[in-house]
C-alpha cells in the first residue's frame, strides 16, 4: 500500500511537470531533376518536449519518389524505372545534468530494399560547457531483393561509430572535430547494375557487378562556425576527408553564409565542392579477365562536383518560419562514360550531370 501511494505521488508529480510541453512540427518538400532522373522528397517531422525541455520525443516520415531513365538504366535495355522509398523514424532525447542522451530508430522500405537502423548517442559537457564531447553508435540490418528475380535475396549489416569534440573558442566562434567509422558487411552491390567487360572479340557485354563483402569507411571532419559582427554575417565552414577500404578517397569543402536582412527575413548562401579518387578495382571497361571485383557503380569512379544554393527564410512569428530553397548541382566524371549502345564504345562520352534542386519547408511551434 505504501508503495502504491508513492507510485501515485510520483505519477502525480510527473503529470504536473509535463504541463509545460511544446510541440514542434516541420514539413518540407524537395525535388531533384537532372533531366533524366527526377526525385521528389516530401518529409514531415514532429517533436514534443516535456519535463521543462529535459525530455523530447520525435517522429518523422519521409518519402522519395524516383523516376529515372538514366543511361545506366536504358543502356541495358531496362525500361525507365519508377519507385518509392518510405522512411519512418522515431527518436527520444534526454537532457541530463552535464550532458544528454538520445535514442533513434529508422525504418526504410522500398519495393526491393528494406532497412532498419538503431542509433544511440550521448554528449558530455566539460569546462563549464566550453567543451562538449559526443559519442554515437548505430546498428543496421538491410535486406536486398530484386524486382527482376524473385529468388534473389541478400543481406547487409552495418555498424557505425562516431566521436566528436566541440570547443567554444570565443563568444562568436565554435570549432568541432568529428570522426566517423562505418563497417559494412554482406551484399554491397546492386542486383541491377552491370560492369562492362570487353571480350577478346572486342564486343562489350554487361555482367552483374561483384563487390567485396566488406567496406570500412572512415571520415574526419572539421567544422568552424563564426559570426562576423561588423557585417552581421554568420559563416559555417567545414572540410571532410574520407577514406575507405575500397581505396576511395575524397575531400568535401562546404561554406554557408547566413545574413539576417531584417527581423523577418534571412538569406543563406551555400557552396559545396567535392572531389573523389576512384575505388582500387574500378574501371570504366574491364578486360576479359577482370579480376575478383568489378563494378558498374559510377559513384566508385573518379569525379568532382560542386553545388551552389540559396535559401531565403521568412519568419512570420517566433513560432512560424517558412523557407524556399534553390540549388544548382554539377557532377563531372573523369573516367565513367555515359553508355549509348552497350556493345559499341564509339557513342560513349564522359558522363556529366547537371541538376536543379528546388524545395520549400515550413517550421511551426505550438
Amino acid at each position, binding site marked *: 500500500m505504501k508503495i502504491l501511494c508513492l507510485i501515485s505521488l510520483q505519477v502525480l508529480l510527473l503529470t504536473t511537470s509535463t504541463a509545460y510541453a511544446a510541440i514542434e512540427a516541420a514539413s518540407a518538400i524537395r525535388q531533384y531533376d537532372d533531366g533524366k532522373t527526377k526525385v521528389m522528397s516530401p518529409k514531415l517531422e514532429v517533436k514534443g518536449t516535456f519535463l521543462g525541455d529535459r525530455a523530447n520525443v520525435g517522429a518523422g516520415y519521409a518519402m522519395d519518389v524516383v523516376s529515372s531513365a538514366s543511361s545506366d538504366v536504358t543502356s541495358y535495355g531496362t525500361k525507365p524505372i519508377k519507385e518509392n522509398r518510405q522512411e519512418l523514424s522515431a527518436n527520444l532525447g534526454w537532457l*541530463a*545534468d*552535464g*550532458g544528454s*542522451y538520445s535514442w533513434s530508430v529508422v525504418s526504410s522500405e522500398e519495393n526491393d530494399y528494406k532497412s532498419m537502423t538503431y542509433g544511440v548517442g550521448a554528449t558530455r559537457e*566539460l569546462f563549464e560547457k566550453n567543451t562538449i564531447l559526443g559519442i554515437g*553508435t548505430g546498428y543496421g540490418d538491410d535486406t536486398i531483393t530484386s524486382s527482376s528475380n524473385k529468388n534473389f535475396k541478400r543481406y547487409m549489416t552495418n555498424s557505425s561509430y562516431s566521436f566528436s569534440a566541440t570547443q567554444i573558442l570565443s563568444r562568436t566562434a565554435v570549432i568541432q572535430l568529428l570522426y566517423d567509422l562505418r563497417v559494412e*558487411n554482406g551484399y554491397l552491390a546492386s542486383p541491377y547494375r552491370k560492369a562492362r567487360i570487353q571480350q577478346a572479340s572486342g564486343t562489350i557485354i554487361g555482367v552483374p557487378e561483384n563487390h567485396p563483402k*566488406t567496406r*570500412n569507411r572512415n571520415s574526419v571532419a572539421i567544422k568552424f562556425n563564426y559570426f562576423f559582427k561588423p557585417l552581421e554575417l554568420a559563416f559555417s565552414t567545414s572540410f571532410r576527408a574520407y577514406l575507405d577500404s575500397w581505396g576511395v578517397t575524397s575531400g568535401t569543402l562546404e561554406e554557408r553564409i547566413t545574413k539576417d536582412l531584417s527581423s523577418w527575413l534571412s538569406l543563406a548562401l551555400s557552396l559545396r565542392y567535392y572531389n573523389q579518387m576512384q575505388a582500387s578495382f574500378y574501371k570504366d571497361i574491364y578486360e576479359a579477365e577482370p579480376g575478383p571485383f568489378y563494378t558498374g557503380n559510377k559513384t566508385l569512379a573518379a569525379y568532382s562536383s560542386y553545388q551552389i544554393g540559396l535559401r531565403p527564410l521568412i519568419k512570420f512569428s517566433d513560432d512560424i518560419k517558412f523557407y524556399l530553397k534553390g540549388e544548382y548541382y554539377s557532377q563531372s566524371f573523369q573516367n565513367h562514360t555515359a553508355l549509348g549502345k552497350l556493345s559499341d564504345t564509339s557513342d560513349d562520352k564522359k558522363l556529366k550531370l547537371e541538376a536543379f534542386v528546388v524545395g520549400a519547408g515550413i517550421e511551426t511551434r505550438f
Partner: protein
Amino acid sequence: MMYLRRGVFHFIISVLFASAVPALAKSNRLIVESDTTVFTGPGFKFRPLTNAKSGDQFPLSKKVVVGRDGGEFYKVLIKKKSGPPRVGFIPIEASVRTEFSETDSPVDDDVDSYIPFSQADTSFQVGFAGLKDSNFLWTVGYAKYPAPGLYLKLLVGQLLYKRAGSLLGGVEVGFEQSTFDQFSLYLLLSSGVVNIPIVDEVFAGSKSLSFFTQSGMGIRYTADEDAAVSFGLLQIAIFSPNGSYISPGAGISLEVGL
C-alpha cells in the same frame, strides 16, 4: 496507509507551528569564489561529482570531514536538475568562503541528514559478453574518471571464436550519468587491435592483425565506493581491409574501485 496518515498529521502540525511562531533556523552556506572540483568522497582519490563555478552556493555541513589521507574537506549538498540531491566534498584549500546565518524560512538542506555516496576515481573492470553464433568476449580494464561523468579505460581481452581465442587490446571512452541514486546510465566506445591466430577464423580473409571497435549502452549499479555491476547491450565490429565480422551482443561487467 499508516505512514501516509502519520505524514499528513506531521505536515498539519508543522504548518500550524509555522503559522503560529516563526522559528529561526540556522543555515550554513559555502560560496565558491573560484572554480573548483566537488568530489563524491572526502579525498582526491574519489570520483569528481561536478565542477563548481565561481558564485555557486551550496548548503554546508557544520562539520569539516577528515579523509583517509588526512585531508580536510567541506561537506556540501549538491542539488541536481533531476534526481535527489547528493553529498559532495570540497577541499578546504579551495577558494571558497563559508557563511553562517539565521533564517526564518524552513531549512530543508540539513547536509548531515543525507548519506554520502562516494565512488573511487579509478577502478579495475572485468567484462563478459555473449555475441551472435555462440561467440564470446571477455575483457579486463583499468578505468579512470578524469572529469564528472567521463571515464577513460585501457583494456585487454579475448574474442572467443569457434576454434581459437583472439587477443585484443585497446582504449575506451565512456559517459556515465547518474540517474537514480546508485543507478547510472552509460554509453561507451572502444577501439583497438585484435590478433587472430588462425587465418580465416573470424571472417574470410582475416589475418593476424585486425581492428575492433565496440560500443555499448546499459545500466550500472554502484553498491558502494568499491564495487559496481553493469548490464548492457553492445555491438562489436572486427575488421580488416579483407573482411569484417559484425555482431550485436549483451554483456555484464564488474567493477572494483582502487
